[in-house]
């Protein structure tokens, strides 16, 4: 079949239900992976700032780093036998990828807080949980959010690979289209993934801006 230029436009219309469904699954994959990542990595990052034993910290960073460096395809291939094919395995893989950047940024966010501020909070009689909630967490939020933004963009693009293990999402459409040599559909679903990444980046960027506007800690300069 010959591909005509207008096919690249009509494909959006013809395959709309598939594309929307793929996009929906893609969002679900990303959001679940990131949420899991946050649930584990943010508390872990906070715990790490409280641990004075150096080797625990470096061990944790090294382990999460390892996940990061395993090639994505290899990781998926490794997980498939363990967790089977499908969305579950895909989410676990993406979640492992998200750990490192979220952890790193959470740690950096807490680490960057001026010790004088902590001291002053302590001196005023906030106990450690109040300090965490009222002082440290709000101050670290801009860092955590920018880590989240970066991670989200990565995960959106890596989620395309989830198609390889039947994880659903736009990746699956791309793979199917490739095997059928349906170029318009390949392009269309890739564009959808791209737009998703851009939109996520833009929205989270706005959120980061909102958070960091208030808390530029100029106090430290005295």
């Amino acid at each position, binding site marked *: 079949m010959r591909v005509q230029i207008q096919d690249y436009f009509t494909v959006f219309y013809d395959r709309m239900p598939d594309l929307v469904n793929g996009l929906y699954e893609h969002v679900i994959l990303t959001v679940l992976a990131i949420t899991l990542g946050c649930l584990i990595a943010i508390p872990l990052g906070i715990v790490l700032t409280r641990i004075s034993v150096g080797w625990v910290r470096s061990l944790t960073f090294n382990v999460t780093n390892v996940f990061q460096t395993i090639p994505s395809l290899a990781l998926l291939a490794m997980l498939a036998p363990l967790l089977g094919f499908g969305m579950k395995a895909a989410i676990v893989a993406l979640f492992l990828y998200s750990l490192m950047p979220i952890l790193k940024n959470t740690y950096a966010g807490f680490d960057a807080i001026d010790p004088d*501020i902590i001291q002053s909070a302590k*001196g005023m*009689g906030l106990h450690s949980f109040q300090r965490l909630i009222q002082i440290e967490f709000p101050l670290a939020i801009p860092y955590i959010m920018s880590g989240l933004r970066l991670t989200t963009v990565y995960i959106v693009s890596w989620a395309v690979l989830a198609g390889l293990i039947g994880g659903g999402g736009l990746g699956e459409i791309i793979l199917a289209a490739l095997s059928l040599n349906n170029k318009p559909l390949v392009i269309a679903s890739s564009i959808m993934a791209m737009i998703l990444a851009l939109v996520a980046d833009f929205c989270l960027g706005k959120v980061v801006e909102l958070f960091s506007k208030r808390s530029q800690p100029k106090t430290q300069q005295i």
Partner: protein
Amino acid sequence: MIKLEGINKTFDDGYEALKDINLHCNSGEITVLIGPSGCGKTTTMKLINRLINQSEGKIYFDGEDISDINPVELRRSVGYVIQHVGLFPHMTIEKNIGVVPKLLKWEDDRIKTRVNELLNMVGLDPETYRQRYPSELSGGQQQRIGVIRALAAEPPIILMDEPFSALDPISREQLQDELVRLQKNIQKTIVFVTHDMDEALKIADQIVLMKDGVIVQQGTPEEILRYPANDFVEDFIGQKRLKQVQDIPTVGEVMNEKPVTISPTRGLAEAMKVMENKRVDTLIVVDNDNQLTGYITVYDVTQAFDNVDQHVKDIMHTFQHTINADMLLSNAIRMMNNLQTPYLPVVKDDGSLVGVLTRGSIVGYIGTAYPSVKEAVVN
């Protein structure tokens, strides 16, 4: 009263930051800790607030060992201005000031009123500044907020670690005056750290001079200036200030300690009799508690003499100016000159009369030699 007894502090790395510190900070007084960098001033403050614990010794608040008090509770009852202000950058000024009141579960309205009151007190318009973030304030303004934040919940004890260090000399003096004025009303127990001897002399009731983790000398500004314990103290005070002070007597040394007084309830004939006997033309009026209430002159008495119902209190005038026994004679003479007054009553802080400085007593003093004994007040 805060009492430190035999305090030693050795840090984990083995550094001995404080050695056998014994210190009393009287209630309602400003105790100033002063000394070169690294001598242990901040460490002492942190011990009082239990931010760190001493290696040896005990600290008492009004006789209660503070190691028996829950540290979080303790800190809420101690206002603390840390050395580098430490405002919370993510909270508005209003929220920053309200942190401790909020912890103590004050009502929102009460916190708001208090915040406005405090901002006004340090000359920052609440409308303008309440909603700002610390980064939108100058360094000096931030320090003011640091100070009022410590006052917010009206703690009985306030620790201030170099609270005015980032200010220009003029605002610094303003805030010092402000603090002294404020302290007259609030009567808190304040421990104040500074590097600046002028600041210490200006605000202190007691000065504690420290060096390398020990107290070198402790005393009133007057005692420190007059009887520096050793060369270190002299150097720290500076030759210029010493010279200024040591040759000049205070009002207390020169004044007439037995002024002729009369009670406000006495009759006028009696007043006249006293004036005749003591050969004076003015009587100082003090009540039964020796509180200075005013004065009467012979002219007033003769004017009203025929009226039998009149008593001293009915014709008495009040003093516009009084002086303190610690005042330097040179300043007192300047004051008498400016006011064109032949005498000034000398009172204690509580308003009770201790003497009167007259032109006669000044002339009498000039004939005598200056005291040459140099007593050291060493702790």
